[in-house]
């Protein structure tokens, strides 16, 4: 839980994803606590990376959302967005 308390500006999100038979995860949409659901149009890259803006580290999904690129991180067990 400590990671949650660390940075109040970090946006943790609820994620809907496909968990593929090969063990990989494909996020489909996410939603912050008080925000609307955001549909991910395409995931263009998946890799382990640090989050320099929001703080933290995890599997970074580079997502295309309505023509904009943003990073969705999975730092187990948390998901957060870096805009």
């Amino acid at each position, binding site marked *: 839980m400590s*990671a949650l308390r660390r*940075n109040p500006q970090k946006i943790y999100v609820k994620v809907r994803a496909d968990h593929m038979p090969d063990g990989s995860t494909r996020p489909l949409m996410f939603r912050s606590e008080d925000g609307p659901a955001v549909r991910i149009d395409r995931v263009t890259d998946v890799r382990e*990376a640090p989050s*320099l803006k*929001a703080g933290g*580290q995890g599997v970074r999904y580079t997502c295309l959302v309505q023509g904009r690129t943003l990073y969705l991180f999975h730092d187990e067990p948390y998901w957060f967005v870096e805009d």
Partner: protein
Amino acid sequence: MERVILHCDANSYYASVECLYTPQIRDKPVAVSGSVEARHGIILTRNALARRCGVKTGEAIWQAKEKCPELVCVPPDFPLYVRFSEKMRRIYAQYSPRVEAFGLDESWIDVSGAGVTFADGVRIADEIRCRIREELGITVSVGVANNKILAKLGSDMKKPDAVTALPPDGFREMIFDLPVQDLLFVGPATARKLARLGVTTIGALARCDAGVLHSLLGKNGPLLRAYANGEDRTPVMPLTHRRCIQSVGNSTTPPHDLRTPDDARCVLFLLAESVAARLRESGLHARCVSVSARTTELITRSHQCTLARPTNLTGEIAGAATALFAERFAHGFPYRSAGLSCTMLTADDEPIQLDFMGDETRRMRAERLENAIDGLRARYGHQIVQRGTVLLDRGYARINPVEEHTIHPVNMYAG
């Protein structure tokens, strides 16, 4: 086959992880420190900015703040450091199954194999260094050599985010002028003894007569001389290797000094509970109990006693420890901290001589009770069941001896 060993050392590990997870403090001098209220108010680690201001590991927070008033002190988050350390080891494990952890922030990796040259080792080291920075966001220093001692020395030579290669045919020129304390296992006491012989550099130690060193330092003397000459065949223990445990112990600096025998009893019960639980978890019995206490002048004394029979029951270990404390430490109050450790370990399924006059039924009941308590604590946390003795003092009752004190470098000679 030529051995190629890497030693990876995460730079200012705790502080780096803190800065990674809290971007607001990234450009400030940062130190991870214990809690002042709990009397653990010392600097555990600091980042490069704090180091430049002269902040040192191990000094009191107030001393550090005198040198660096803008120092940001953050409390340690051990679960996060453990989790992050596993991420580093997952990367190391992609290069070799032979990875040996030395604390949370250091690991040896044995990348030797058919056709792997020293130059390959340097290339792998550089790849690991880049991956840790790009994938995890912290930096490591890597030493490359043909043994663990030199690899460790190499990782200390260039920091941060660097690789230092100590090739078998060229390491002497690189290390012989370094202070002898830079060598692993040469602590301040050994360095002082060596200085009396005029041995202050690794080169001087390497050239020193083995007999003279033996008379000064015992069997460790010739061993350290061999290390200085780059001779070490200690294997890198793989992750899966089950270590031969030599002792199980724990110590704590409670929120206030131990002033009375009741305080001591309370803390010894706390420590005995954690030690006994770890013995049971490892399937061990102990035959010897050792108690140590540190006075408020920071002088540590320890005494030990042998038990009539091997045990892993809290009551028996705590009983022996409190009796020992009453006998040996009764006149030195107050004490700042206390420790308890168990040695002469045997497997718990080894046959033991039962006592005809003793009450075996009571003992078996105690064993069942302690197993039940272990089960409850595993499910609901350590504080779910506590002894009445411990609850007599609210300060002590908050200490969690199991979860807060289990991070130790692993003994290199283990196994």
